[in-house]
């Protein structure tokens, strides 16, 4: 069994706002092993991106981590000061943001922007060494070496996103977080980028955290996955197992509401209601008001807690017995 690179334990994070505290991440625990691809799936506002930001300690000023720990190779990240964090960011963990292709500085050449990141972490390396490194990265993500001397506006959306992936890999990080890296792209380009990410991940033995709302992409990209709802992980386990036998009612609902181009044309099921507001403290099961499998035997007052039901397969306690 390969060793854990990143482990998150009982992470709690809230945003302090004028209308009250928004509890965006509640008691989230997961770990990512070496060379593994881990998926985080959920609807908008469920806390996926808040988790990603906490991992890099890049959360907004009004965000407070009230408890929990994030360890990268045994080193605690919560509570680190800025100068220590600078070393971890990009060197240890890097991120490909949602719509990151719009994050390029328009007046600086693409290659120079990647060189800047490498220079910051490895000042001893020469310019020629860095250029060589960038060329090899570009080759890996399917870009021509000439792109180094291009300005961002000269590239298409797909090319910019490829270059962003090269940028994320520029300091040989152990963990790469991909936060919806393809949502702004077309299906055909999305497919190419996904293949590229997968290829690079396998080639370099990277640990990848893939965040998406699209369960079809998670199915193709990840080895293990976690489903988030209203700030909590409600089910986590091997991707193939979760798809084959989902246990939590929310996971089932997600799978049943995703249309597909293959297989029989089936009637899809929708989920009534809306996700709860995260401002109010929710006691008991946050999914109970929408749960289609709510039975007389289930107790909505019961606090949510993950229990192990199989090897590495965890599910919220309420769904321990399959419905």
């Amino acid at each position: 069994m390969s060793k854990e690179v990143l482990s998150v334990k009982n992470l709690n994070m809230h945003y302090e706002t004028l209308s009250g505290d928004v509890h965006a991440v509640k008691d989230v625990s997961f770990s990512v092993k070496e060379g593994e691809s881990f998926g985080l799936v959920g609807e908008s506002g469920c806390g996926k991106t808040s988790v990603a930001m906490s991992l890099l300690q890049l959360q907004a000023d009004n965000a407070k981590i009230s408890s929990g720990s994030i360890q990268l190779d045994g080193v605690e990240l919560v509570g680190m000061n800025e100068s220590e964090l600078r070393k971890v960011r990009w060197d240890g963990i890097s991120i490909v943001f949602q719509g990151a292709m719009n994050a390029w500085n328009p007046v600086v050449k693409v290659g120079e922007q990647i060189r800047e990141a490498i220079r910051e972490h490895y000042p001893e390396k020469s310019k020629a060494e860095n250029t060589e490194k960038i060329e090899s990265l570009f080759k890996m993500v399917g870009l021509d070496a000439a792109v180094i001397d291009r300005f961002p506006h000269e590239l298409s959306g797909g090319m910019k996103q490829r270059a962003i992936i090269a940028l994320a890999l520029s300091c040989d990080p152990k963990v790469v977080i991909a936060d919806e890296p393809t949502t702004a792209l077309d299906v055909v380009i999305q497919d190419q980028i996904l293949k590229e990410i997968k290829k690079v991940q396998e080639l370099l033995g990277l640990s990848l955290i893939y965040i998406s709302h699209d369960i079809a992409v998670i199915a193709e990209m990840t080895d293990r996955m976690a489903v988030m709802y209203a700030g909590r992980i409600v089910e986590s386990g091997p991707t193939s197992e979760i798809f084959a036998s989902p246990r939590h009612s929310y996971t089932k609902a997600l799978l049943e509401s995703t249309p597909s181009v293959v297989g029989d044309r089936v009637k899809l099921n929708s989920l009534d209601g809306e996700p709860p507001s995260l401002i109010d403290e929710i006691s008991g099961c946050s999914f109970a008001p929408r749960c289609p499998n709510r039975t007389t035997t289930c107790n909505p007052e019961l606090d949510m807690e993950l229990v192990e039901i199989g090897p590495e397969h965890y599910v919220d306690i309420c769904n321990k017995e399959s419905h």
Partner: protein
Amino acid sequence: MKKNVIEVRNLEKYYEVSGGFFSRKKDIVKAVDDISFEIPFGESLGLVGQSGCGKTTTARALCLLDPKTGGDVKFYNNETEDMENIDNLDDDELKKFRRNIQMIFQDPYESLNPRWTIKDIILEPLNIHNIGDLQDREEAVVEILKTVGLTPASNYLPRYPHELSGGQRQRVSIARTLIMKPKFVVCDEPTSMLDVSIRISIMDLMLNLAKDLEVSYLYITHDLAVARYMCNRIAVMFNGKIVEIAETEELLNNPIHPYTKRLISSIPVPDPSYDRKVYDVNYDELDAIIAKHGNDNPMVDIGNEHYIATHDVKGLI
């Protein structure tokens, strides 16, 4: 023979773009280039393709939001019970025509006026077309809110769009569209901004309304899986032209055009055990069809009302 609600023949929408402020050179962008289709009553046609391929331009041209630059659009006229070319309509008739053809937009956050209450938003089309007296109109609003599942209506009438969630707003958009009792609705990615669990309920609502009210949709989307759920037929658009059009399952199971094949093979499948095949673009099948049918006809029927475009696409896909 099925009765069509709309027939589009050789529709063109060209834009002139200048090479720059001092340049006299004018280039022409063929955003929509010679497309034809028809939609029978109560059926919906999906228009799929990548961004920038001309889907929305087609929609706007059909709704007369941007005047087309060529081709014919014929619409079923209730009074004469015949197809009527919209070019032949005068202003009064055009206003009437617009009642029958409505549009649902992509972004429910931007397409509703933030300063108006839900009641004002849904009343507006009735006021513009001067339908019924005030009491009739208000009753109609309450009725339509019930139809789209926003009940009790009195809860929603005095509220503003920002007080509603994305799914509820899209229901308001649908209510505003359907209050005119249109026969044909153009939907421009109406669910792409919504979350998965809410998306299906909006799609089901639209399907049910289509059945109950006999509405036909032109459903624009980049997602073939969504189009499969919503549409009887699918037209695949590429570079301003329709390259393939067929009944939904026929198109998915038996795609011929290299672009269609590429599109279908690019869609992630929500099943980790499914092995999605990589499609290498090749033109063999298309070439064989062109050789058999000749390419004097822009679209050829290969059986089962499955049409393939015969124009040259080599090197573009």
